[in-house]
């Protein structure tokens, strides 16, 4: 077994070597601009893009024309929220989302609030799920968009998206879903889920960084978006003095919603990554879930006062988020520094606020500071899981021995009744 161990697969994933192999020719011999319509270099690149677009569309049960390439999920989220608000401002000015969305959605919503848009941030229950009835009750005649993530990036909790999709449809409100953590890991069908817009990205599923997509529904309803980046679709053909560029202000690739020359090697890599997920998801999800369950049992079975964050079953197969009472998360990461993990502790942040996601679940600040996120992925091995269990137990015990809180708790002091000097 090689050290260090990578167990932070919610942050990013390594490229699958098969993805890199698929990409390589597109850097050198197939380097054309996919928007160049008048020579074979362009056609070849376009063919690569078209193939990728098909694979991506197939996985989520969409049409290839409904896939808009972006630089990643953050851009997709921004385009969805800001593009809808701009396009539908005559219709209303209200957005509904949740308090546990990724920063890309929350910060885009906050930026829209500054421009006068009204945003409702719905609460979640203690497992991290939003109540579809809360969504229904929040809808007003001014609501133009609902944006709720498929699966949470910290706790892996999967929202009841299909139920919310039904409500959105019934009320005639557009529904955006940030599916960054879910696509490629759990089955996603935009028809079944009833979503009109969906963000996802390549680098979470063993593809390259710098390429993402926004699914934009074309029928029932036909969703329109104001672009964030102008440039008349794609520049390749036209700027090169080619014959038929799209008319200014419309059409073009990505349906005029996102201009800029497509990064063909990245698009091809994205397509290959999705193709592999489609083929391997049934086995891979079972395998990663088994490793995750072993990790969970190994750690939680060996220590007292260790708590699972998130939903016990409605959770991404590779996700595990645990709070270790009486020890601080960052110190714990330091104790297992040969294993790459993340913590909900915000000891390094300027505000000293721990994870807003865990706080929204009602997890106390103390336990939020004590949380660790494990992300099992395609390349995680059983040996790595066993090693991690062993190292976590040792590090937690080391820190508990050093912890005044653990000592007080052992002496029978109720920590909740202590008058702390909050600083």
């Amino acid at each position, binding site marked *: 077994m090689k050290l260090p161990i990578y167990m932070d697969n919610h942050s990013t994933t390594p490229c699958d070597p098969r993805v890199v192999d698929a990409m390589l020719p597109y850097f050198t011999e197939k380097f054309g601009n996919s928007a160049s319509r008048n020579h074979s270099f362009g056609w070849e690149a376009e063919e690569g893009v078209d193939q990728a677009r098909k694979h991506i569309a197939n996985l989520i049960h969409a049409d290839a024309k409904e896939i808009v390439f972006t630089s990643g999920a953050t851009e997709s989220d921004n385009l969805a929220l800001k593009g809808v608000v701009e396009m539908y401002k005559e219709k209303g000015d209200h957005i509904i989302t949740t308090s546990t969305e990724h920063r890309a959605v929350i910060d885009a919503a906050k930026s829209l609030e500054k421009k006068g848009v009204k945003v409702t941030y719905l609460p979640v229950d203690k497992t991290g799920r939003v109540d579809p009835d809360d969504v229904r009750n929040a809808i007003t005649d001014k609501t133009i968009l609902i944006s709720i993530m498929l699966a949470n990036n910290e706790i892996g909790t999967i929202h009841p998206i299909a139920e919310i999709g039904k409500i959105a449809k019934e009320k005639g409100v557009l529904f955006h879903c940030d599916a960054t953590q879910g696509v490629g890991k759990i089955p996603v069908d935009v028809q079944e889920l009833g979503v009109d817009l969906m963000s996802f990205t390549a680098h979470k599923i063993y593809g390259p960084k710098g390429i993402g997509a926004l699914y934009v529904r074309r029928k029932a309803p036909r969703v329109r978006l104001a672009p964030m980046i102008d440039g008349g679709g794609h520049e390749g053909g036209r700027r090169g003095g080619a014959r038929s560029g799209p008319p200014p202000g419309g059409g073009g690739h990505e349906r005029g919603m996102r201009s800029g020359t497509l990064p063909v090697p990245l698009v091809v890599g994205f397509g290959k990554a999705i193709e592999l997920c489609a083929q391997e998801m049934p086995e891979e999800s079972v395998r990663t879930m088994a490793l995750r369950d072993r990790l969970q049992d190994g750690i939680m079975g060996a220590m007292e006062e260790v708590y699972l964050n998130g939903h016990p079953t409605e959770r991404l197969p590779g996700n595990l988020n645990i709070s270790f009472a*009486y*020890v*601080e998360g*960052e*110190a714990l990461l*330091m*104790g297992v520094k040969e294993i790459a993990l993340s913590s909900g*502790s*915000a*000891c*390094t*942040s*300027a505000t*000293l606020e*721990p994870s807003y996601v865990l706080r929204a679940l009602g997890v*106390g*600040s*103390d336990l939020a*500071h004590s949380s660790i996120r494990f992300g099992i992925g395609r390349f995680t091995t059983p040996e790595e899981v066993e090693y991690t269990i062993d190292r976590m137990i040792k590090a937690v015990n080391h820190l508990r*021995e*050093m*912890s*005044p*809180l*653990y*000592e007080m708790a052992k002496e029978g002091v109720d*920590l909740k009744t202590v008058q*702390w*000097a*909050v*600083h």
Partner: protein
Amino acid sequence: MAYSEKVIDHYNNPRNMGSFKKEEDGVGTGIVGAPECGDVMKLQIKVENDTIVDAKFKTFGCGSAIASSSLATEWLKGKTVDQAGQIKNTEIVQELNLPPVKIHCSVLAEDAIKAALNDYKKKADTEGETEAAATPA
């Protein structure tokens, strides 16, 4: 963020980790911080003839908080009560090469020292009063 070697050393080999009995003679205890802020330090000193002969700590907090309190116990030993009151958080920052985001850990350590010293003085005064009261004039 990478930790300095000194912080890592204190984390792996904490100095003077442990506890004295609070009611023991000459022991001053300072507990500062709060669990919801992510750090709590308990620092204890044992004083004989105005000199700190031993010190112990327990800390719930990040590596820098652990190192700051571990270092504080090293520095406290051998100092008089007055000298101990002079220890500044900036000296801890310098010794451990703490980055700006971790300065609060050193502040907490200085607060813990002050709290322990105050507790000791308060106890000593009370004991003194008791003795004085017990001794007929």
